[in-house]
């Protein structure tokens, strides 16, 4: 498993290298966007950690160029915490966003979540933390007990489970569950998210809201 760190701060790169190597990653480093893109082309990393404030070009620009030919999971690691910056990164194809300063444990968990192979087998059962979804029959069980869900609730939960641990943007959820014409109808999501929260009460699963960005299904 190879991780590429694109960050101009040598200390951040060194510390991330140590943390990642302790988890068994092979680590590559790049100190600017151009070198990062070159490295991504030649060494095909399995995951990329990308800083936004690079000396030669903006991280979002690096991401856009990368997305022209690669679907490699990308985790944005930045000091910028404004909603608009995060949204721009997600629109450019980021898989998740962690603001500096960050906790190493959280970073590693996010990294694992974005690397999980997604949608390889549409008919395979999806499961996380005692919740099992059966995509063929559209049925769900929670800790072995059947969980009653409406078709919309099922569709939304399926999206969250498929991307468990990873933020799913409002736009993505609305598109996937209600269709492209519903992209502005964020109130649908609020209602169903609260329904789902009620139904998941008492389990180890939590539907977390990332203000202005989206939802994340996490296991406590």
């Amino acid at each position, binding site marked *: 498993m190879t991780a590429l760190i694109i960050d101009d*701060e040598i*200390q*951040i790169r060194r*510390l*991330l290298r*140590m*943390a990642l190597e302790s988890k068994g990653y092979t680590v590559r480093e790049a100190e600017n966007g151009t070198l990062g893109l070159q490295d991504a082309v030649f060494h095909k990393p399995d995951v990329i950690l990308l800083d936004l*404030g690079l000396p030669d070009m903006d991280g979002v620009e690096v991401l856009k160029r990368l997305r022209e030919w690669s679907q490699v999971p990308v985790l944005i690691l930045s*000091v*910028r915490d404004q*909603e*608009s910056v995060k949204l721009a990164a997600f629109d450019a194809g980021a898989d998740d966003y962690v603001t*500096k*300063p*960050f*906790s*190493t*444990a959280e970073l590693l968990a996010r990294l694992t979540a974005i690397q999980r192979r997604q949608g390889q087998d549409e008919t395979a059962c999806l499961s996380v933390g005692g919740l099992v979804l059966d995509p063929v029959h559209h049925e769900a069980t929670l800790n072995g007990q059947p969980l009653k869900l409406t078709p919309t609730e099922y569709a939304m939960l399926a999206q969250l489970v498929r991307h468990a641990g990873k933020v799913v943007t409002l736009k993505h959820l609305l598109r996937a569950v209600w269709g492209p014409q519903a992209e502005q109808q*964020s*109130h649908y999501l*609020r*209602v169903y*998210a*609260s329904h789902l*929260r009620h139904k998941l009460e008492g389990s180890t699963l939590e539907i*977390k*809201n990332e*203000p*202005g960005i989206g939802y994340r299904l996490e296991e406590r």
Partner: protein
Amino acid sequence: MNTEDTFKPKPAREPVPTHVVGQFSWGLTIIFVLASACWVLLPYTGYLFSALVFLMVIVLAGTRWNRGPVLAMAVVSALVWNFIFIPPQFTLHIEKPQDIIMFAIFFVVALSMGHLITRLREREAALERHHREREELLAQKHRAELLAESERLHRTLLDSISHELKTPIAIIRTALDGLGQGNPYAAEIETANRRLQRIVENFLEMTRVESEALKPHLDWCEIGDVLHATTTPLHRELAEHPSIITGIESLPLLMLDSRLLAQALGNVLHNATLYAPAGTPVEIAVSLTNNTLEFRVHDHGPGLALGIEEHLFDKFYRAPDSPAGGTGLGLAIARGLMRAMKGDIEAHNHPEGGAEFMLRLPVKTRTT
């Protein structure tokens, strides 16, 4: 701006401005004075001389005065010339045909001179006005460009300063994670680093609030999400102060900026945990009346000292006997954020003791 008035159709019976009345009387006076002078000189100069003098005076008047008085001078001087100077004198009757023609020419020349010169002056004034307006517009455009430029510079500067300040904090945090738990020295560094992070974030947020670059991003929100976003970053502080939240069960979806509201509320909550003794609860009562969302945050601390209510939300203000650490920015930011969302915040002592902060926000609602 009387020159303008002559262009426009006048509303019925508008009083004539006093300076125009002055011009009329001056005009007539000058004509009579000149007529008298020419009368004295008549034996030496002949009657044509006075006509030229009148024309000159009309031209001079035209360069300064309004059209009305100038045209009146033209008419009066023609009549005076005819009456006093053209033979036979002291009648309006003219004997010689060439004198009739001369009188007609004088009349036409005097009127058209008066008309042309006043119009020329009006044109000049209009041109100058246009010129001034254009310069004004250009200056405005220049100012707007400067403002946009300074805003961009400000943002770039803020970005780079926040990068410079937060990066070392991030490095310390990550290095401490690498050291692992259990080392008491590391724990002290971590506490200090956390404090530093809070200060840096407060300074940056204060700058953002003050630069008015803060534009609320409204969306439908569930109040539970907002409170969740408020309490999660404060879990350490709230561990010693159980938060009791009431009034959120029946609330509909609300149109608001959940990030800004969560931050304002978080600052108030953090403030409450600083002053209230450990173990005492912080009560948050949420209510919605007439599209105004209200949060009442009530702590069981010592309450507000007499007379500090006005200063509480001032930048860098720290109440007497405040615990060490803290910049006096948290509540100033909370107020800045609430005002950016067209809401407000105030504080007073609760009748049962402790301080109570009220945050109010106008919201649109949507029943589900």
